[in-house]
């Protein structure tokens, strides 16, 4: 019979990733129901929750790897790969649909040359769908990082993108 400890050997992690995980878990692990705050803390610091880090998070939280993997993969917000420098979320929900979100979505995909959940080859932009940003009074809406933009049109998107790339 193999020892559990052997199966649970931790993968090697870059020192910086390891330090972040130990800092965040050390700070938050004793608060009730800490796993989501911990994952937010790690993603805030690293930009994503690396697949290889799950074993260490699990050990520090006294959970199984399956528990942590299950939670990371359940929530749309957590990503296991690094995002581009800017994350563009395009709302696909009904209020934005009523104001031309489908056309806007197609335009943005064509302009960036990527589909949802992808990052441009130069690592500049990641495109994500979102189901309501609470900006339904100024549909269609997108969010660039933490900044919502309302009454978005293909022309206004292009103007923003052109200003970005200068």
């Amino acid at each position, binding site marked *: 019979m193999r020892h559990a400890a052997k199966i649970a050997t931790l993968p090697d992690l870059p020192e910086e990733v390891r330090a972040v995980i130990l800092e965040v878990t050390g700070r938050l692990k004793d608060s009730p129901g800490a796993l989501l705050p911990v994952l937010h803390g790690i993603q805030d610091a690293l930009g994503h929750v690396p697949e290889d880090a799950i074993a260490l998070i699990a050990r520090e939280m006294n959970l199984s790897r399956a528990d942590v993997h299950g939670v990371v993969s*359940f929530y749309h917000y*957590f990503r296991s790969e690094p995002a581009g420098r800017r994350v563009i979320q395009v709302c696909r929900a009904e209020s934005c649909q009523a104001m031309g979100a489908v056309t806007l979505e197609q335009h943005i995909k064509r302009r960036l040359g990527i589909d949802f959940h992808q990052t441009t080859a130069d690592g500049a932009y990641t495109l994500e769908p*979102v*189901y309501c940003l609470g900006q339904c*009074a100024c549909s269609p809406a997108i969010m660039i990082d933490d900044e919502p933009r309302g009454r978005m049109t293909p022309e206004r998107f292009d103007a923003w993108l052109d200003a970005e790339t200068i």
Partner: protein
Amino acid sequence: MSVTIHVPRDASASALGADSVAHEIAAEAARRDIELNLVRNGSRGLFWLEPMVEVTTPAGRVAYGPVQKRDVASLFDAGFLEGGRHPLALGLTEDIGFLKNQQRLTFARVGIVDPRSLDDYLAHRGYRGLQAALKLDGASIVQAITDSGLRGRGGAAFPAGIKWKTCHDAQATQKYIVCNADEGDSGTYSDRMLMEGDPFTLVEGMTIAGIAVGATQGYIYLRAEYPHARHALEAAIATATTAGYLGDNVAGSGKVFRLEVRMAGGAYICGEETSLLESLEGKRGQVRFKPPLPAIHGLFGKPTVINNVITLATVPVILDKGAAHYRDFGMGRSRGTLPIQLAGNVKRPGLVERAFGLSLRELVEDYGGGTATGRPIRAMQVGGPLGAYIPAAQMDVQVDYEAFAAIGGMLGHGGIVVFDDTVDMAAQARYAMEFCAIESCGKCTPCRIGSTRGVEVIDRMMAGDRLERERNELLLRDLCDTMIAGSLCALGGMAPFPVLSALDHFHEDFEASPAANAAAS
């Protein structure tokens, strides 16, 4: 004396350029050597006029909007600091028709006060509800909520007083108050507006709830998509704690109540109360079986009151002005007011808080002004992505929980999304199933599998000939029946409503595919 200017910090106002307007006003004032008191308020909810700038004059607050950065210099030239004339001038804010004819109880302070200022909150009847509550015992506070007729504003419309009483009567060493701030329904933004524009009201409402049922810890479970609301809430909690309104001795009463904001993970299902509790416990947001009820066996297995933002934010006014004052608004079993949100293809999108009883037509046509595109209204989806599509012919339905249920709809969280006559209702029905498939928690089969099959059946319907369409419509209706009857929670149980309403009221959209139409023409 310096002039006071209000420029909203509301996320939608920001999305329309309010931050650069505020910056430009400050810069222009500095260039002209004018001293200004620039306040970043919440939004009044007149979003077609955002960014709306208000100037405090001896006659009252005067509004200008929608203001863009390039308009700022001309506003100064026109003497807007004294309420001067300008093409963007709207007159006294309180006299704008959209606002004047409202009955704002829950939203009484939103857009008026500085959301970062406790002093401003106190100057506008803030914490009077708590002061009144502290003179009562827990059971009497619960009784006041029951007497007010307040029902859960998140969508399910369950009487808040009954929830509170169940939790109050439960014996436990620890109880919790949880605020459901996972506002994910498209067309709704009242929670966001309130949290950004008057966060102390939510803090006060939760504190009263805690004192009423004997809970010492509260959590606000907030959407990851709402960073502005997070900043507002965290600032309010820190200020209230420093001022002694939260912590070990709430307002000198010796009572304990602590509050924490927890960020969600972008899962729609976590707006369902038992999924939300699972998520707060650090798990996958999967729906729990009920019973046991959360009021008895809730967060970490302890008795928990879980209410939506608007429900909890309405508690202070009920305690301040009395249950009877609140109950006197409304009709039938829908008492008080409902903050309604006009969204989608509407000329004047915004927040309308009115007593229950006005018609959908008054809201969409009188307040909303019809469609933004100027085309005829064809459908309205009320109550979020799980709400039925209501045809223009049924616009005279009254805003009332029971009246909506009678036509197969639901009021839900009070969001109304308007569509003009270019909408393809078969595509909307397909989207309802697609959304359910993306957001299903996976626990029960009718929702997890049914939604995916639903998309496929609609696709086959639209691709096939008449016989194929009829066969698949039978199948689709049968599938909807299974989902409604067999799903564990409202996601799978209600996702068929938009689908069935599209089939029932807009059947012509399912009768010929666009490809067939193109071939025929």
